[in-house]
């Protein structure tokens, strides 16, 4: 099957649509500057902010007075452009995010404590922030909605799931990408990790000193070439190949040799049937942190060889690091670059260093046939996507029902099991519920002798809510000062799946879905499509949520409460 891209849409600090984005790229005009909409005390930190307030975005998207997280407003703006360009209804909407509605939660936290602003509470959930986009997109048309949440690789994983769904007949036309707004929460979180620069970022420069956070959204509309041609749609580019691999090294840092990134890029090339020498341009993850750029350079050099390095640049000096949206925004940038035949400049680079990629520093006008786009996330969730000017034949698969070979549920997890499966050193940073799910996962793998499953996929409504709420409360109480990094590191939705990969050295497929009570169904569909396509044979599926008193007091305003769940399932293809 050939997967055609028939629509693209984007919004970021360098433009509110494709045309503006293209113009800024060609003019080498960065969008990084002082914060205007984000109300943080850390005004010395530059950001790649979309230059519209929430109210302006509401007017632009016609959403009126309805409460909408900024993530959803940005997503809606970009998704409309992509769908309008494609010109046909979709039956699946897949949008990666991690921030979700955190911007509303942090703004209204004190109101919540006083029993006010209850209408915003449900929008906190990542999955609800995606639902809010879809509600405004199609009238009377239903679509399956998915919210992958693998931190900064979320949007690329969305595109991968979309492609897998097309190849297995689970969807006809998919909108896939990601959306993420700036929030004080993750600005402060990244600040505790000491990886934010107080200057415009300099990816791959010897003197780089950290990243700038950005925001925005980017989506592709993908469908079979056959369908696109039948309806006379314009084909912009094709999906060449893709892969996801876990670095299985550290919760926030990439391994020195970039093993996960290497495996993801290698897997994408293999699926596309391409030699490294056929890649014309790599849009690097290139965050401009000391760690990412060194690790990514090592993995790219290992795969491509020093002499045969294609043109490489990071576009984060234009947009900032748009975290969960980055894969979507950068995939759109790659398609614009392909359409107009240029390599975007890696701005602000001036000094080479040994072992580091030497990027393209001025716009280079060359034809691009195959582009590799990287997105790497916390927990080592690494993904790579190849976008091609020519069609690539990808195999199709017939859906199968995987066999559930083991379940470890909440009642089966004893204190003894936790002691046996989780060492004190491992447990040190985990909440009790995290220890329970890790113990359940390890025990399930042991009892089925599936010690190295091909995929680890977690389903969670709220993610690691206890640590999130700890960080949020501390941030508000302290006025954004002297925050502890550990609760932030553990706050992302993908903490559980990636942590289990780290603890067991599993470099396989790794993903997390946050779609309310549909989260488990999303995770299962992911592994079913992959089993159907022969990409995996075994999978560890986890269901995780925590009971969080401080959030329950807020949820009580809408008559709900959190429910603790820790379950591990092992599935085999047959």
């Amino acid at each position, binding site marked *: 099957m050939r997967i055609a891209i028939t629509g693209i849409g984007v919004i970021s600090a360098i433009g509110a649509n494709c045309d503006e984005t293209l113009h800024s790229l060609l003019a080498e005009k960065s969008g990084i500057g002082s914060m205007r909409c984000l109300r943080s005390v850390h005004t010395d930190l530059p950001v790649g902010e979309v230059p519209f307030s929430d109210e302006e975005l509401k007017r632009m998207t016609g959403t009126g007075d309805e409460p909408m997280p900024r993530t959803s407003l940005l997503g809606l703006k970009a998704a409309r452009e992509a769908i309008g360009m494609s010109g046909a209804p979709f039956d699946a909407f897949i949008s990666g995010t991690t921030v979700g509605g955190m911007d509303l939660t942090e703004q209204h936290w004190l109101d919540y404590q006083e029993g006010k602003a209850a209408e915003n509470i449900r929008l906190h959930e990542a999955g609800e922030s995606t639902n809010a986009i879809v509600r405004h997109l199609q009238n009377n048309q239903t679509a399956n909605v998915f919210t992958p949440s693998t931190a900064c690789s979320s949007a690329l994983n969305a595109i991968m799931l979309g492609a897998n769904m097309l190849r297995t007949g689970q969807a006809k036309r998919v909108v896939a990408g990601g959306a993420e707004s700036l929030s004080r929460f993750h600005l402060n979180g990244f600040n505790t990790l000491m990886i934010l620069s107080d200057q415009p970022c300099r990816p791959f420069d010897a003197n780089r000193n950290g990243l700038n956070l950005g925001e925005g959204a980017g989506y592709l509309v993908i469908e079979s070439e056959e369908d696109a041609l039948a309806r006379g749609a314009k084909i912009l580019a094709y999906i060449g190949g893709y892969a996801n691999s876990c670095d299985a090294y*550290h*919760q*926030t840092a990439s391994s020195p040799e970039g093993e996960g990134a290497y495996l993801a890029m290698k897997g994408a090339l293999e699926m596309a049937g391409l030699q490294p020498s056929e890649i014309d341009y790599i849009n690097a993850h290139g965050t401009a942190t000391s760690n990412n750029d060194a690790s990514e350079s090592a993995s790219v050099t290992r795969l491509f060889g020093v002499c045969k390095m294609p043109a490489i640049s990071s576009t984060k000096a234009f947009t900032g690091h748009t975290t969960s949206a980055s894969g979507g925004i950068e995939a759109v940038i790659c398609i614009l670059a392909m359409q107009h035949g240029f390599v975007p400049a890696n701005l602000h680079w001036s000094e080479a260093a040994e072992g580091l990629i030497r990027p393209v520093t001025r716009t280079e006008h060359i034809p691009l046939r195959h582009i590799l786009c990287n997105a790497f996330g916390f927990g080592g969730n690494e993904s790579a996507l190849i976008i091609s000017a020519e069609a690539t034949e990808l195999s199709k698969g017939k859906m199968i029902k995987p066999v559930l070979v083991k379940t470890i549920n909440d009642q089966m997890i004893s204190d003894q099991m936790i002691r046996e499966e989780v060492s*004190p050193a491992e*447990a040190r*940073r985990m909440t009790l519920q995290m220890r329970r799910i890790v113990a359940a996962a390890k025990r399930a793998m042991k009892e089925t002798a599936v010690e190295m499953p091909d995929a680890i996929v977690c389903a969670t409504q709220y993610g690691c809510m206890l640590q999130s709420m700890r960080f949020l409360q501390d941030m508000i109480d302290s006025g954004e000062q*002297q925050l*502890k990094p550990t609760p932030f*590191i553990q706050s992302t939705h993908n903490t559980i799946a990636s942590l289990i990969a780290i603890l067991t050295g599993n470099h396989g497929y790794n993903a997390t879905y946050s779609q309310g009570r549909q989260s488990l169904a999303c995770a299962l569909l992911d592994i079913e499509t992959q089993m159907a396509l022969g990409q995996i044979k075994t999978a560890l599926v986890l269901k995780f949520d925590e009971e969080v008193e401080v959030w329950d007091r807020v949820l009580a305003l809408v008559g709900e409460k959190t429910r603790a769940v820790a379950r591990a399932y092992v599935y085999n293809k047959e």
Partner: protein
Amino acid sequence: MEQLIEQLKSQIIEALNFEDMTPADIDTDAPLFGEGLGLDSIDALELIMLMDREYGIKLADPKAGKAIFQSVRTMAEYIQANRTK
């Protein structure tokens, strides 16, 4: 100095969630990273934050922590020399 070392050990145990440990379990001169307590880069960030919160010492470059956090003793000496509270 000895008093500062004891206090620091308690603060490290709390900041890094060493639940079953007491100050007596930490060797003042043993390496904090690698062997010894086996700390990692997340702990280094926590120790930087600890020095900021408890002693008013701000480190701009996380790499500077490497020399300071060799052992509890080197950390205490650095705090003694640089504390602002």
